[in-house]
């Protein structure tokens, strides 16, 4: 197996760890953190490709830069929402937000 394939496996594992965190944790902050893990996994995969595929070198790096930037924006807004909700409901437990039930 190529070196790059190892990096892919790593990325996949990290992605799924993060996915589990998003799906299974009750604390919203931890959910956001797990989301960041998933994004990092994706970045890993991208950089792996950029590194080992000459044709994609510059663009791969750029793509990762953009992902990082957008991830930053997303965390900001996401946490702002969580805090705003917290002000109203005094809770950051994800399954206590179920007004749309049914």
């Amino acid at each position, binding site marked *: 197996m190529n070196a790059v394939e190892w990096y892919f496996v790593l990325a996949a594992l990290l992605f799924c760890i993060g996915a589990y965190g*998003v799906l*299974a944790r009750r604390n919203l902050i931890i959910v956001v953190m797990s989301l960041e893990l998933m994004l990092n996994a994706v970045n890993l995969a991208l950089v792996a490709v950029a590194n080992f595929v000459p044709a994609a070198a510059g663009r791969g790096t750029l793509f990762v830069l953009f992902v990082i930037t957008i991830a930053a924006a997303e965390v900001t807004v996401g946490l702002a929402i969580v805090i705003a909700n917290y002000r109203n409901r005094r809770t950051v437990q994800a399954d206590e*937000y*179920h007004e749309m*039930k049914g």
Partner: protein
Amino acid sequence: MKLIVALIPLLPFAGFVITLLLGKWVLGKRADVIPVLMATASWVLSMYVFVRVVADPEYVFDWNAFTWISSGALETTWGFYIDPLAAIMLLVVGTIGMVVHYYSIGYMKGDEGYYRFFAYLNLFMFAMFVLVMANNYLLMFLAWEGVGLCSYLLIGFWFRKKSASQAGKKAFLVNRVGDFGFMLGMLLMFLTFGSLQFTEVFADVGAAGPAALLGICLLLFTGAVGKSAQFPLHVWLPDAMEGPTPVSALIHAATMVNAGVYMVARSYPLYIDSHSAMYVVMGVGTFTAIYAALIALTQNDIKRVIAYSTVSSLGFMFMALGSGAWVAGVFYLLTHGFFKGLLFLGSGSVIHAMSGQQDMRFMGGLRRKLPVTYWTMMIGALAMVGIFPFAGFWAKDEIIGFEFTHHLYYIWVVGLITAFITGIYMFRLMFMTFHGENRSSPEVQAHIHESRPIMTVPLIILAIPAALAGVLAGWPPESGWIHRFLHPVFFDIESEPFGIVAFILLLVSLVIGAAGIAAAWYLYLQRPELPGRLAARFPRAYGASLNKFYMDEIYEAAVIRPVIGFAGWLWTFVDTRVIDGAVNGLAWLWGRFGRLLRPLQTGRAQSYALGILVGVVVLIVIFRIVEG
């Protein structure tokens, strides 16, 4: 000629449109001018055509004005067909139509629907003219429906009166039954002959199978049974008396009801090749003749007596046509139109004088105050009973005699009995109305007066042909002018010479008719208490006759109740439970389905995220399989 033929129906149609649109606001009380003018003009044109055909009876005018339907194999036109038969019909329709228009000016004066009445009258004239001049069955049927429509409109003319509007409905519905038969007949005709044009169908008669021909003739006859009020579809005609008397005179005596007779006469080439059909026609006609006469015997409403008399006379016409006396039947149609129309108009004059009273038990002694009405109606009555030398004698007694000479002895006897009864009821009417002492209240009596000239002149005008038409057209019997005139139409009929046998037969029917008059004289003038005692002696016979042999009750029980019951069942079961059940059930089903799926909506974002993940995994797997 084409222009004239086209104008005959078009002028009244224009009159209808104009009067209907403008009548209420613009024309008001003078709404009668245009329709009457149109009727007169059409009469003039009809007379022109009649004279033209008289001059050359072999002349046949067959003109297709324009193509109406051209669809696959069916090609029908708006076309006109003028021959001696059509000419005679034009004479009857045009003359009586015009006379009734003038009469109506007087009779309908002050009515709030004045303009409507004349508009409908003109519409009727249009439809009737098209009917008698049509050159194919489909156009004739269109006009057939048109006159049916006008009949409905005019019977229910005083629509605020419940009984009138119901009578109109009854007329239309019963007619519809007959019309259905007519339509089936046309369908069969088209299947057999490939066309509905007279000339094409009649040329091809030999090629049709006897079963098909029988079917066509019987089905067409069903239409005639409806339109001409024969048993069992006669029930609408007495109720049609709810309409104004001019309507009864025009439509239900002289023209529309004759449409059935005309249709059978026109289909002569079809019927002579189907003896079974002719027997049916004859049977129905004969039965209806005596049946209606028996009912007329006990009716107390003056218009009902004349109505049942019309049914009986129409039965006579079908009896004639069915037994082969084609010319005599048409001859009777011609004369009957005049004297029956006269009788109706006269009764209208009587009703007018009696301030709306129609029950003869409250009349009496009117001959002194209403002389013109009396004498003209007397002529009509004598013609009706078949007394020499009035018109009815020649036609009716010729029919009766024909039955004998053609070995239809039972029919002959029934015809004589009917003639006898006709004499009784007709003169019962005359005696109860005009003779004796007046039996109404003093206020009504004070009001009795002869009608204005606008109404009496038409009576006189009609009395003339009622008196003379027989002599002029029918002498000598069996080989008179009318027989020669109609020979090109009824080409297989031989004119028979007038021999001693025929003379004796005529005498016999004359005597029978006179005997009927004598019986009426005895019963109603000499011994007026006798009819009451007879009725008491035979209560069931009297009741049967008075109640029209319970025909309406039979229909109610046999037809109307089951249909209403069926409709009710359809409502409570099919509509409520099946259809509503299905629709509601469907809604319930979707509700259940929704409730089933509701747990999926947890409201928690994480469960949705899980769903997304699962979906993505599934998609990946599918794509791998598809590509691999």
